């Protein structure tokens, strides 16, 4: 089974891109499955159901979404294989600009909204930096020049990635994206494979439910800000 991980900031258009992508691939209905990793609630499962795409949704809740992703991804793969999929696509929302749910050897796509600001690609970090392909959405309503500037910002952070403009509504661009994804490798298990980047560090008192503020309540992995005298 081919495995593809797709990630991107909330509301960047991941689901629309995936739906258009699956439509473009021309695989039999039911042979491409999606696992959606979300945080609290999600309405996208309805859209997948409408398109007759098998979908499984998981909510990270109080756990860091990346930690949640990595501790469930191999189970997702096993579910995909058991269900007889030819292809499994995982969708996850990067929330802290530090997320990077990409695995070495697994095809990775970052979806980013061109309306989010020209400098946004330069701020996103590993989520963008380590992707194989960067799919830019909503670019049909901005000028050609702004599109080029946006692509330039992406190249600054990730010079290896292919930048593809995808229109999540008309599907323009999803054809070429689907072509790229044909290169995705077959995966039987992810056991002992490695993430491309460490997940955000944690395990401090706040991770385990502390709510009180102040130095005496702060334990474990902490990072303190430095305030300089003016």
């Amino acid at each position: 089974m081919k495995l593809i991980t797709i990630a991107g900031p909330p509301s960047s258009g991941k689901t629309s891109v995936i739906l258009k992508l699956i439509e473009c691939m021309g695989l039999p209905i039911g042979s491409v499955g999606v696992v959606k990793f979300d945080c609290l609630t999600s309405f996208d499962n309805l859209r997948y159901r409408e398109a007759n795409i098998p979908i499984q949704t998981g909510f990270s809740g109080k756990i860091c979404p990346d930690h949640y992703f990595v501790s469930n991804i191999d189970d997702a793969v096993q579910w995909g294989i058991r269900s007889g999929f030819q292809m499994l696509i995982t969708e996850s929302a990067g929330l802290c600009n530090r997320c990077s749910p990409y695995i070495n050897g697994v095809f990775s796509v970052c979806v980013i909204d061109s309306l989010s600001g020209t400098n946004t690609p330069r701020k996103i970090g590993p989520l963008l930096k380590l992707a194989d392909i960067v799919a830019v959405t909503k670019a049909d309503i901005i000028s050609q020049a702004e599109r080029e500037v946006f692509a330039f910002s992406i190249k600054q952070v990730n010079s290896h990635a292919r930048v593809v403009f995808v229109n999540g509504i008309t599907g323009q661009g999803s054809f070429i994206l689907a072509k790229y994804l044909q290169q995705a490798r077959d995966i039987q298990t992810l056991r002992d494979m490695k993430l491309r980047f460490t997940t955000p560090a944690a395990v401090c008192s706040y991770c385990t439910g502390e709510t009180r503020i102040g130095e005496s309540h702060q334990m474990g992995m902490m990072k303190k800000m430095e305030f300089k005298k003016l």
Partner: protein
Amino acid sequence: MIRKDFLALANDISIEDLLLEHPIVADFLANLRLDNIPRQLPLSLAIEEMDEDIIQEFGLDKFGVLISFCEFMETFSTAKAQNPAVATLTIIGGLNKSGEPENISLTISSGDIVSIVGPTGSGKSRLLNDIECLAQGDTPTMRRILVNGVELDDLQRFEMEGKLVAQLSQNMNFVMDLTVREFLYLHAKSRLTVNAEQVIEKCFLGANALAGEKFLLDTKITQLSGGQSRALMIADTAYISNSPIVLIDEIENAGIDRRQAIELLAQREKLVFISTHDPLLALSADKRIVIKNGGIIKVMEIIQAEKQSLKAIEKLDGILQNLRHCLREGDQITVDLLKA
């Protein structure tokens, strides 16, 4: 310059001098939150003074910073920014919506203008999409697009992806909060334009020549009228975008000199496709592709009689433009104005 040369830059000259020679280095430093490193040192020595923790947050070590620097510089060296040259583009017909063959092979050269006409929903955008993705018989229309007479393999298509085609449509807006000057500067920078100042000046003058109402270099791009925006987009595509092919989807009634706009693009040796319902624009093209039921039914060459009618259409258009002008100026709109 290749990677090795950039490594020499990082070793031999101070960051200060590096910035003078390659201003884009400032972006590299800012991206890695390294704005405050000692600038009198070369990069390779300066990184020794950096906070290892910050570098690690970006998934790098000190050596990795040097490698990324070289990759960054290589990506943005002017040699790499060149767009592929397109002398000709050939459209080889596929199938229409009923599966009937189009039986067509059309070759267009740079500097040519081609209009695409047909009822709404007939497949005009589909043709533009085929051109954009350089279809090789693998899209629903089965069309093939040859560049300079040759078929392309997937690798070549991926290589050209995004560099070949510039698009312009009625739905496009400016979203950046910048003045015209800042905007053009930013775009020129991203295209690694040489002599940016001159190019920006040309582009600005070109845009104002097309726009019904003039604007300034200090005008915010978001405050431009529809016509002014379109004029700036076209001039920008002509002077700053390097894409050899321009696809235009509906730019009628934009309050700009449409014919002059199209000619400007053609003069810049672009290959221009215009999908339109506007007779003035359609007849500005030498060739006209007619689409029906998802397929190209014919390709028309403009004939002498049409060229003559174009003059009459221009006259009508001139009357309408003048009406708009009078309306803006607060004049009375009387039947006399229609005679012109």
